């Protein structure tokens, strides 16, 4: 299944389903495969950054670059696992985990002040100065009981959500 043949066998579907912890039904996996093949124009078995950016709706998203680093080079199985946080069967915990992963760009399980600053920069572009961004973030962190030097982990994110 590493190469894009246009047919998925039952085995393939079940393997993918297992890999994403049953986040999608078999029919949904078939539809996702159709879409994956549609995006993977050169048939390399994975969708490159260029191919994702050719979808204008994706390209105009402020977080597209950040997501591309997570999406680049994924084969179909990993692609479905990536999207599992967006399945209607995904729990709130899974969604928060995904958001954490987006912030934690170096994947060490800790989100730093700079990580949060970077994402805020993506979302606000040139319309706030760097100084104002830092100001806002520091203030909000302090109110929630953290400091600039705090390293946030998953449980901190969960706490912030349910606050």
């Amino acid at each position: 299944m590493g190469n894009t043949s246009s047919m998925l066998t039952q085995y393939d579907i079940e393997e993918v389903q297992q890999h994403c912890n049953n986040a999608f039904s078999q029919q949904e996996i078939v539809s996702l495969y159709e879409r994956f093949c549609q995006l993977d124009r050169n048939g390399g078995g994975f969708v490159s950054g260029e191919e994702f950016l050719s979808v204008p709706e994706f390209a105009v998203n402020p977080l597209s670059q950040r997501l591309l680093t997570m999406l680049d080079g994924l084969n179909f199985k990993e692609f479905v696992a990536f999207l599992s946080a967006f399945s209607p069967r995904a729990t709130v915990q899974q969604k928060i985990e995904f958001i954490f992963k987006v912030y934690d760009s170096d994947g060490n399980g800790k989100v730093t002040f700079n990580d949060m600053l970077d994402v805020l920069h993506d979302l606000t572009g040139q319309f706030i100065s760097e100084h104002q961004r830092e100001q806002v973030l520091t203030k909000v962190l302090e109110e929630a009981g953290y400091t600039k030097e705090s390293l946030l982990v998953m449980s901190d994110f969960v706490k912030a959500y349910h606050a």
Partner: protein
Amino acid sequence: MNSSEGKLKSSSSELDLDRPNIEDYLPSGSSIQEPHGKLRLRDLLDISPALTEAAGAIVDDSFTRCFKSNPPELWNWNVYLFPLWCCGVVFRALVLTIGWIIFLSCFIPVHFLLKGNDNLRKKMERALVELICSFFVASWTGVVKYHGPRPSMRPKQVFVANHTSMIDFIILEQMTAFAVIMQKHPGWVGLLQSTILESVGCIWFNRSEAKDREIVTRKLREHSQGADNNPLLIFPEGTCVNNQYSVMFKKGAFELGCTVCPIAIKYNKIFVDAFWNSRKQSFTMHLLQLMTSWAVVCDVWYLEPQNLRPGETPIEFAERIRDIISVRAGLKKVPWDGYLKYSRPSPKHRERKQQSFAESVLRGLELEEK
């Protein structure tokens, strides 16, 4: 995350085979959750709307839908239909060959011998081009129904139509010899363009050249003002779309100071999908596909000519005409520029979203400082 729950529900239904109308789901306004009142950590950390939108775009987006062609369905492979089909293909190839012979044997003498007598030459060349187009249409067993009054030759008017394939031009041309503005193609098509189509007064452009736009606009204006030029036909979408959607119209045709006559073309997919997916096949293969299908069935509507209303901008005018054509031909409108097939969207879409989020963050900051 309650605000994003509703959106996530739609993404599962998008994965169903019977897709709902995705146009209700297009991103509008801010995709970034705007914090109200006092800013909390959660407001800054919650990027789920932007993520949901990105995931939605990855799973299904309205732009790619415009260019999706259906795979050909082979339902004619049985014992009864197959011989009939073979005869049909042979017959069609014959018709086309005869057509070309007749055309070339008349066109070449007319073109060279009547060099002096321009009026008569133009008239005859026009009639001959209409003739060869009819032969083309016959070679695909084209069943074309024309509705509405035939275009008349008047100055200061242009015709616009939705675009599905280069055969749109042939189908329209067999009824009236239009002068069309086209992308110059390589190969035999380019040869036809520079010889035969020159005679009906076609205008060429090159998509990739930036300066080209001004030159083309000037040529368009000149052509439309001339009284005995053939009526000008423009496909404002700028690219072939799959006849179920319409992409944004380019405003070039709508700022020439002329009456715009809309033409709607709808193909019936019953025998063949006439959409030319230029990424998937060359024009030659496309023609062969048409010639080896049972028929090309389509409807052409000549709609009521429209003028720029007082206070209307060319872009609004273009949208109004797109509305008229889309309603008549049963096309769903999509807010994307067809040229995004070849290029990236401009950063201003993203900047608009960033700006509104930035403003609300700043507002929250001000509230804090009070």
